[in-house]
């Protein structure tokens, strides 16, 4: 079995993918690499969880996809945020900030 993103807080993968796509449309591998780079290699995702998340996000209408050529002129599926996805990212980011701050307060108090 490949390693699972169990070290990722439940439910945060979707938010991270949305964040990654906020700048520009990207293909699957690009998203994986970007997530690794941005997290300084903390999050190393296997293909399974990544693609299940793509399918889920696409079905809930937060992202959309399109086949395009890569810079290496290879065919790849590019994912992009929808308007709905952008809204969700904003609200989730806010909510996340609130929760982290709250958790931090609790941890500091003890």
């Amino acid at each position: 079995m490949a390693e699972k993103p169990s070290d990722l807080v439940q439910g945060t993968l979707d938010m991270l993918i949305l964040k990654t796509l906020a700048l520009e449309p990207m293909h699957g591998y690009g998203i994986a690499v970007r997530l690794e780079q941005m997290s300084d290699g903390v999050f190393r995702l296997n293909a399974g969880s990544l693609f299940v998340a793509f399918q889920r996000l696409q079905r809930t209408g937060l992202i959309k996809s399109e086949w395009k050529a890569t810079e290496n002129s290879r065919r790849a599926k590019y994912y992009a945020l929808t308007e709905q996805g952008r809204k969700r990212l904003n609200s989730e980011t806010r909510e996340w900030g609130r929760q982290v701050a709250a958790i931090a307060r609790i941890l500091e108090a003890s």
Partner: protein
Amino acid sequence: MSFLRSIASGLRSLFRKKQVDSDLDEELNGFLEMAAEEKMKQGMGRKHALRAVRLERGSLEVTKEEVRSAGWESFVETCWQDLRFAVRMLLKSPGFTAVAVLTLALGIGANTAIFSLVNGVLLRPLPYRNPNRLMMVWEKSRDGSPENVGYATYLDWKSQNKSFEEIAIYSSWQPALQVGEPEQLSGLRVTSNYFRTLGIHPEIGRDFLPEEDVPNANKVVMLSHSLWQRKFNSDPNIVGKPINMNATQYIVAGVLPARYQSLMNQDPRGGAVEIWRVLGYDVSQPWACRTCHHLVAIGRLRDGVAITQANAEMDTIAAALSKAYPKEYDDIGVILTPIREQLLGPASTPLYILLGAVSFVLLVACANLANLLLSRATHREREVAVRTALGATRGRIIRQLLAENCFLGLLGAAAGLIPAYWTPKVLASVGAGDLPRLDQVQLDWQVLLFTVGVALLTGIAAGLAPAYRLLKNNMHDSLKEGMRGSGSVASRRLRGLLIVSEVALSLTLLIGAGLLLRSLSRLLVVSPGFDPSNVLSMQTSVLGQRFNDNAIVRQYFADAVERLRALPGVQSAAAASQIPLAGNMDRYGFHVEGKMHANPEEDPSAQRYCITPGFLETMRIPLLRGRDISLADRATAPQVLLVSETTARRMWPGEDPIGKRVKLGGVDQPWWTVVGITGDVHHVGLDADPDMQMYIPHQQWPFPDGLMVFVIRAASTPAAISSAAQQAIHSIDATQPISRIMPLESYVGLSVQGRKFALILIGAFAAIALTLSVVGIYGVTAYSVAQRTREIGIRIALGAQRGELLGLLLRQGMLLVVCGVIAGVISSVALTRFLATMLFDVQPTDRLTFAGVVLLLVAVSAVACFLPARRAMRVDPIIALRYE
């Protein structure tokens, strides 16, 4: 929206599987390639790079599987796989499948049939607008029972109440339609607001108008859709046309829609109501009195008015009326009956009893199937163990087993629908008694839904226990050759419990059937008080201008009886205004000289038969004392009558009634002298005690009845004289309709038909349940014998007596039966009291029935245990020891 998108995308992957697959393939391949290229840039060889990527990111196939199983469509897909697998497994053991399907078909078929009956009769909505606001409105009689109303009372109710939107009244009407062959119709006379009250609009034409509801106005009628088709060829221009009935011209106001079938006449002998005329009540007539209870009232409650509220208001009105007319009311209030209860109430008890009984059959079938599945589970332990070892999850295995059971259930449902399809026809041939709306019993989507639901539920319920057992078993033991996991104590106990409940349920059904059988046999030996064999009855009424003269009416019937008597093959003939057991309800209040109450309303009433001489002889009703009426008792002679034994006993205890005088109807009527005492007849039913009865000469009654029933005693069968008798009557006047041509024995038969119907059905259910239980008992014993073959062999080899062994094997099965019998007797004692209303002369806990049924069940079960046990006795110890 995202929900819809998810469905669309899921459907896409289901139906365009290839395309979606190759898409995913390409995307994933690209992903892995790009990852590998990254590694190759750092100097790895392609082969190593790809391997590293696989380790890091997961292999292509595993990822694909993960993505695929994440969507809901994968669930559908595996279900489909489960189903296909189930079909394969069931086809592999056709014997098991056949027995299981047959068991289910019996249980589900019986349930579907009864549900379609209950659905058609009880559950279908009544054909009125907002039927739960419709109430029958009765006067409350002294004994608290509901009673019809008089017209004057109705008018006061109508003008004084504030609870009802409308109150309408009706009374029965049997016009003779003189279109083509004269035909006696079943009809109603109604107030002009009748259809408005019920909420029915004519399909063509118009409703009755208030100005038509007066005496001597234009006479208008409403036709039922069926009458319009049958007698008027669906004439689209029928409205406004005149039709002749009872030698009077009526104008057609409208035709009612086809979906409206009147439920007001529930007498199975009378046929459905097909025609309505405006009441046009003449308040100047003597029968318009407040004490003349001959109209039925029906009202629609205003929105927001509760029944109790309406009842309280009506009681107040009734109390005021009673104060204003103290001599004319003995009633102390008003009774409101919801129309559903009025029309369907009497049918609902027996139907719900049937539904309960048939659900027992289903439970027995379910237990039996569970037992079958348990023994099958033994053979499948290894299969399940292998599948678990290969990584199948618990949920997946349970789902697969349930898929198999659901499929079995559906097969059973399909087989069970076959008998249900025939239900209406079977009902028609068995005769369901006086259940209303039988024509609405059919196989429709509600019934189908019920059947499929019951089938799935049964399949799942029967499959849960075996599935649970399979999973609890130790995988390692099962994988080892020769281990027999399911001989475990828990499994045996479960099977025992199933058998015990099967026996208990069957016993309860058998006892119910036994009680009904005993009731019917008791009822059939009750003498009706007359001899119905070889007597033909036919009804006729005289209509038209010519018959406005009483003398002509009397003469007509005297002549008709004379001509009937003269026919060859006729022993005797007579006519009467009503005959026993025919659903006629003519009662008259009477007043005995010297024994009248201060309020004449409190005096008793009796069934009144207006007869021609020879009625007692033709019916073979015994004359106990005095003389019969004769031709000498003509209109001008002193007025005489006969009273029945019960009347004599109740009214003149210890006295000789002969020579005593009574008044019939009002107190202002002349005196009639009792000249003879007859035997009692059962008028309402064989199961009801005879009431008081009086026989009056047709020649002497001041308003001779125009609707009479001829009774003709034939030398041979009644059918032989039927057409000659009709010709004889028509030879006097061919325009008079003859109806209800029926042997008297059929009336007797009809009066017990409802009981027969219940008995046949519950008997059939009991038989099915018994058969299933016996098969179950046999199966369990046979299984345990098969399991113990080796042990038996050893015992025989060691010198055990065969008789001892037989006892050993029988004891196990019979212990279960005895436990079942005890449980069954307890449940019967608790349940049979619900049958009480359907029993006659038999206690719900009748010892003889209980004992007989228990004996029968034990005997049959003993045979079912004995057969496999005897087979074990024939076992050759050498072979048994080598067994396995």
